[in-house]
């Protein structure tokens, strides 16, 4: 199975270690992984701000870059969800049928549903609180949305349960938004900051040392508040935990 590693722009720029951990992890579970060079952005930031049309070239470029792969896998649920849910509509304008939408996975979803590893060599003797991110939960079904009356499940929790020594928690408001929302964070800064403060406080109240999740964007947002207020918790992308020891 040829897997094309999708590294979104901000992970490329700010969190390359998340990309590295993703690569190692996919390798370790036996995937034939490659990174098509010179990736930029999926187009979500402009689209959420109301300029979806401007994402056409980016969506088209991603189609070209990942043409040769069986799967596209990325460590950012929100970006993956955007490709899956919105690229088809954007590309329809140019009469292009989106092929990425059918083969793109968030890395947790991919590991959990496609690779299904029985064990991992990871060890992380720490308390972690899972950040169930909005688009991961409500667009990619990484866990059961709290609004719905369906049996509880959480793919992130299932994966973390394979890690030795870890203690897993979830916040009381299990999947409330952290307030990032792309340009929402700067267009509504007061509300956005308040949401992040509340969310971080909820994570801290679990007693966890780390907030972990499938979206570096939410983690980046909460990290901003943690650093500003010197709060006693750290953020770490889930792949960095799953790839420990690799």
């Amino acid at each position, binding site marked *: 199975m040829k897997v094309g590693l999708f590294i979104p722009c901000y992970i490329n720029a700010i969190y390359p270690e998340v990309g590295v951990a993703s690569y190692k992890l996919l390798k370790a579970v036996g995937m034939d992984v490659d990174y098509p060079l010179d990736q930029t952005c999926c187009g979500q930031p402009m689209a959420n701000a109301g300029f979806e049309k401007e994402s056409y070239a980016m969506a088209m470029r991603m189609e070209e870059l990942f043409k040769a792969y069986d799967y596209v896998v990325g460590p950012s649920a929100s970006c993956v969800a955007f490709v899956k849910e919105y690229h088809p509509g954007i590309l329809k304008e140019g009469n292009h049928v989106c092929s990425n939408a059918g083969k793109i996975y968030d890395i947790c979803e991919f590991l959990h549903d496609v690779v299904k590893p029985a064990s991992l060599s990871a060890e992380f003797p720490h308390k972690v609180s899972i950040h169930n991110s*909005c688009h991961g939960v409500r667009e990619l079904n990484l866990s059961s949305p709290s609004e719905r009356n369906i049996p509880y499940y959480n793919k992130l929790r299932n994966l973390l349960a394979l890690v030795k020594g870890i203690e897993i928690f979830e916040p009381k408001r299990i999947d409330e938004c952290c307030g990032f929302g792309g340009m929402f964070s700067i*267009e509504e800064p007061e509300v956005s900051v308040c949401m992040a403060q509340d969310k971080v406080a909820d994570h801290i109240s679990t007693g966890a040392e780390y907030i972990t999740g499938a979206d570096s964007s939410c983690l980046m947002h909460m990290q901003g508040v943690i650093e*500003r207020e010197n709060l006693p918790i750290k953020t770490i992308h889930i792949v960095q935990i799953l790839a420990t020891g690799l």
Partner: protein
Amino acid sequence: MSTRHSTAAARFLKDREQEKWHDETLWLVRAKRDKMSRSLPEWETLRNLAASIKLYSNSHLADLLEQFEKNAAGNGAIVHWAKDAEEYNRIVYDLLKERNIKRLAKSKSMLAEECGMNSYLMERGIDVVETDLGERILQLMHLKPSHIVLPAIHIKRQQVGEMMEREMGTEKGNFDPTYLTHAARKNLREIFLNSDAAMTGVNFAVASTGEIVVCTNEGNADMGTSFPKLHIAAFGLEKIVPDLEALGVFTRLLARSGTGQPITSYTSHYRSPQNGGEFHIIIVDNGRSEILKNREHIRILNCIRCGECMNTCPVYRRSGGYSYTYFIPGPIGINLSMLKNPKLYSDNLSACSLCLSCSNVCPVKVDLGEQIYRWRQQLDGLGQANPVKKQISMGLKYLMDRPKVFNTALKFAPLANQMPRFVLYNKLNAWGKGRELPHFAKKSFNELWKNNQVK
């Protein structure tokens, strides 16, 4: 790059204690709703059913409304049709004027609010008295509702007590809720006994029987309609449901979603006028048939006004109903306002982080969040795009469409990490208001890969 919503929200957030209270109180309603919805194993089936029934009704409006009219007339009611707010207001006013009626006891109606009925009638000398307690409090305080189901949720009992000291002569400084409720009840009782006409909203209109259904918790609609000989009820045409079986689906969802109750205390069915009385029903369009044409937004007509999208909305809970520029706030309000007048109300579109909790909580499966996303795509065409957001988007587009430029930018980006604080953190940096900026990596992933450093 502020909007009228973000500016008002910032004002609301200055009082963090009040904000926290508002957030937690409404979250509690959401939690009650979760518990209630989980008590029904068939909850998700009910939601699907309700959404399907609404899509059916709204695509068979002509037939169902005429069926309703025929059956209502058979029951002895008189049915009126109003094209818009003006017609609706005039019909109500004429009914009252012709009978020389001076006082109208009114139970809650979002349609009346939408059409500005109260002020229309009051300017013409009719004393309109709100009989829902929350609405009554607001009326006496000269305030507007900040929530469609819990209209006075933003008011503290101290404020209510002080108003009642003035308006009803209650004991000074007695803010005991039970005491105040009793006083309000006594005060309203006089109004019920001395009103010449009653007006109710309509939660559901049943086509097969020609009856209307009103759901309240206070019994004020029932009290109001029990004494006077004239009952006027009005509904927006999407309130129609085909039959009583369909009605059952909605009554099971409405209160569970809206307030976390199994059912409202009163679910009253009105079919015929009382002995020797008159029963008038006004069916109002006021822009709804335009929404029918709008494929992208037609599901808005599914809305049963339970208000749960407000309770779940993390932005609404932290910014309050008054931060929106339309009389209905929250996710449903954002959407309704855009359908009403996109140029006038586009400021509300910023009040959404696209978390999609509203779409998942909605009992009739309105895709509220997705519709907000679609509205944002219209802004530039409407000439309402925020110039700063546009500039950022175009700048990003320039960068992201040019991998070489992007990669070069990433090489130099770490320099920003070293910049003095005053350069990075100032009025122009909205991110920096409560958050530290992220730090650029010394080497991007792309660079690491090129240098064979990803192993």
